[in-house]
């Protein structure tokens, strides 16, 4: 039903008649100065952009303090930074604190371990984003990588000293919460989505609907509070689950409900004929689900899954509120120290840059996959 010609009602005048306008001049005229209003908007924006950009450049680079001297006791002397406050950035706080922000209270000498874990995570993401790795082996790779990460973080073998998880912190915690959360939530989500769509079992369906809607109806913070103050009450005396694991459980429950809706969207989008064809072939429910329905439904929603994952990745920052040392918490703690108080913006910029790098890479991946899929479908 699309018109045979693309509309050009809104289109700017095109390069025509072989006019002797150079390409750049033509581009400028058509994209920035097409109408008087457009020209005014362009100039105003350009002015603001240059002015603010210059101010920011001055603050972040020209007048920035990159290092501060230390006194005899080894404490940083932040007087220079204080003097430059509001004029120049104090990147010395980053230089001073980056190890703590990235790895928290992990023993200093052992911090190569979480560093390797971070690289492992990044490798895992990068591999998962490649379509050619989408095989059954990928699940195995995930399992191995996650076990390896756990082993490295804890240690206690081959001469690696044991590091309890209350000493973990920084970027690895953020990555662990997000990734393990996803890995744990995924099976849960598939079950809940299947349960919500099961026609034959109304009681199971109700159960799944309750779980999904209840979790989606309340803020993540309430679940984290539940994990931090309510879970301990659930357990018999003497049994204790540590805080990180409790938060992880809350994340799994939370992510499970949101992912379930994504999976359900995939199931719904699948043509009915697929399921009917499987029935006609005499496949049982689980055979049909595992061999025909799920592989197609999940493939369809991969871009959506990535987008949901970006959300979780950002949401892990909420553990700040229950006092788990993820990247946001370590960043905030770094500026609690009297010497560094008031240099929040520098730290926040660093944290924002880290989060942005991860999320932006993922959202680009998601967009790329979406494009790929829609093209594949049209064929």
């Amino acid at each position: 039903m699309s018109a045979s010609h693309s509309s050009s009602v809104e289109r700017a005048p095109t390069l025509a008649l072989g006019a002797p306008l150079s390409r750049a001049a033509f581009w400028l005229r058509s994209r920035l100065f097409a109408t008087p209003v457009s020209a005014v908007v362009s100039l105003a924006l350009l002015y603001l952009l240059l002015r603010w950009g210059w101010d920011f450049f001055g603050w972040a680079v020209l007048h920035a303090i990159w290092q501060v001297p230390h006194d005899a006791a080894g404490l940083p002397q932040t007087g220079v930074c204080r003097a430059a406050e509001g004029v120049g950035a104090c990147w010395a706080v980053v230089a001073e604190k980056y190890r703590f922000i990235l790895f928290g209270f992990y023993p200093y000498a052992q911090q190569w371990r979480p560093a390797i874990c971070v690289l492992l995570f990044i490798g895992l993401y990068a591999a998962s984003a490649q379509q050619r790795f989408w095989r059954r082996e990928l699940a195995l790779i995930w399992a191995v990588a996650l076990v390896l990460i756990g082993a490295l973080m804890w240690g206690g073998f081959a001469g690696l000293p044991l590091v309890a998880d209350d000493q973990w912190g920084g970027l690895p915690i953020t990555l662990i919460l997000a990734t393990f959360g996803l890995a744990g939530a995924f099976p849960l989500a598939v079950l809940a989505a299947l349960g919500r769509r099961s026609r034959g079992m109304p009681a199971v369906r109700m159960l799944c609907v309750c779980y999904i809607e209840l979790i989606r109806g309340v803020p993540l913070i309430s679940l984290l509070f539940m994990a931090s103050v309510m879970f301990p009450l659930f357990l018999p005396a003497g049994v204790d689950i540590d805080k990180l694991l409790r938060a992880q459980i809350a994340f799994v429950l939370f992510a499970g409900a949101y992912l379930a809706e994504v999976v359900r969207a995939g199931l719904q989008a699948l043509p009915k004929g697929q399921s009917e064809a499987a029935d006609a072939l005499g496949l049982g429910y689980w055979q049909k689900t595992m061999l025909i329905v799920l592989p197609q439904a999940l493939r369809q929603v991969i871009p959506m899954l990535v987008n949901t994952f970006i959300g979780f990745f950002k949401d892990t920052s909420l553990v700040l509120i229950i006092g788990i040392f993820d990247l946001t918490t370590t960043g905030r703690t770094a500026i609690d120290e009297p010497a560094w108080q008031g240099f929040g913006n520098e730290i926040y910029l660093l944290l924002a840059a880290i989060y942005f790098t991860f999320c932006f890479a993922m959202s680009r991946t998601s967009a790329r996959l979406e494009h790929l899929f829609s093209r594949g479908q049209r064929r």
Partner: protein
Amino acid sequence: MSASLAAPPRRRLRLSWSDARLRGLVWQVLILGAVALLIWYLARTTAHNLATRHIATGFAFLDHAAPIPIGETLIDYTPSVSSYGRALLIGVLNTLKISIVGCLLATVLGTLIGIGRLAPNWLLARLCGAYVEGLRDIPLLLQLLFWYGLMQTLPAPRRALHPLAGVFLSNRGLRVPALAWRPGDGWVLAAFGIALLGAFLWARHAARRRDATGRGLPLWPAALLVLGLPAMVAIALGAVPGLDRPALHGFNFQGGLLISPEYAALLIGLVVYAASYIAEIVRSGILSVSTGQWEAAQALGLRRGAVLRLVVLPQALRVVVPPMTSQYLNLVKNSSLAVAIGYQDIVSIANTTLNQTGQAIEGIALIMAVYLTISLSISLFMNWYNVRIALVER
């Protein structure tokens, strides 16, 4: 029609494992049983734990005096005199206060940016695009911390920024002049109400007249009425509405309307963040209306503004409502991050309550109940609205 009288034969349940219905039934009983067992176990352990730790149960604490200092209250509240129930109610009201204002502002900002992204001006479109991409990829909590940090770097009240007469911006928040209530103001308010009614009637009259004669009436008399009548009454009564101007007393301002730094930071953070999502929704909504609709309307002689208003926006709205609903829900839920910067919403007050009373279960149940109620109300309203504006298909 005898066939319709005969009911379809009821399938009888066969007591055989090969019967699909029986299998389904058994599975359901097993699953529900397992869930019930788990709940029973957790409940028993919890009851035991509560008993050994001497933690009270039930909602009796709601009537107890609450020693929680609350900075922003829409209703009267005195710490250690008013009850926990009242404190929690204030929390709910504060949550609503931030959510409603936040949704409205985020919609406005998001719509502007969404339309800006489609602008023919390259620079404007790119900047709006950068806004969307940039803010979506940074955690909201981090943004809130940043905004709150920014509020705190503002000067102290004594050296407050003073951009306009009567407006003071300091690290204690934004003080603006407020309308002071004076005896004659009741009449002014009444005049305002009458003027609004008059304006409404005028608009209706104008619409009728357009239907009848094809020519509408200008709307400026209505605007004049709304502004003019209350002003005239005020002048006639000699009671020009007084302004309660903020003034510095000691270390802080008194009088006027205060927007606390916590509220401001939370509001800015929520609006700026949600707008980046709403912008994308608006953009895809507008793009979802095919160019053919533009062309057809223009071919009929409608001007660009009329096309947008009469043809494109009504259709874009349908596409936009469902995702917009979930953004509003997200904003309401995200307002719970208030606890991180000290704005006293329901989560913050319930959290303090549960710390003081030790009644964690009740506290968290209250938080969840409040949010579920709000979520459900928004969902129901938006569903109703969605059904109302849905397209009729065959």
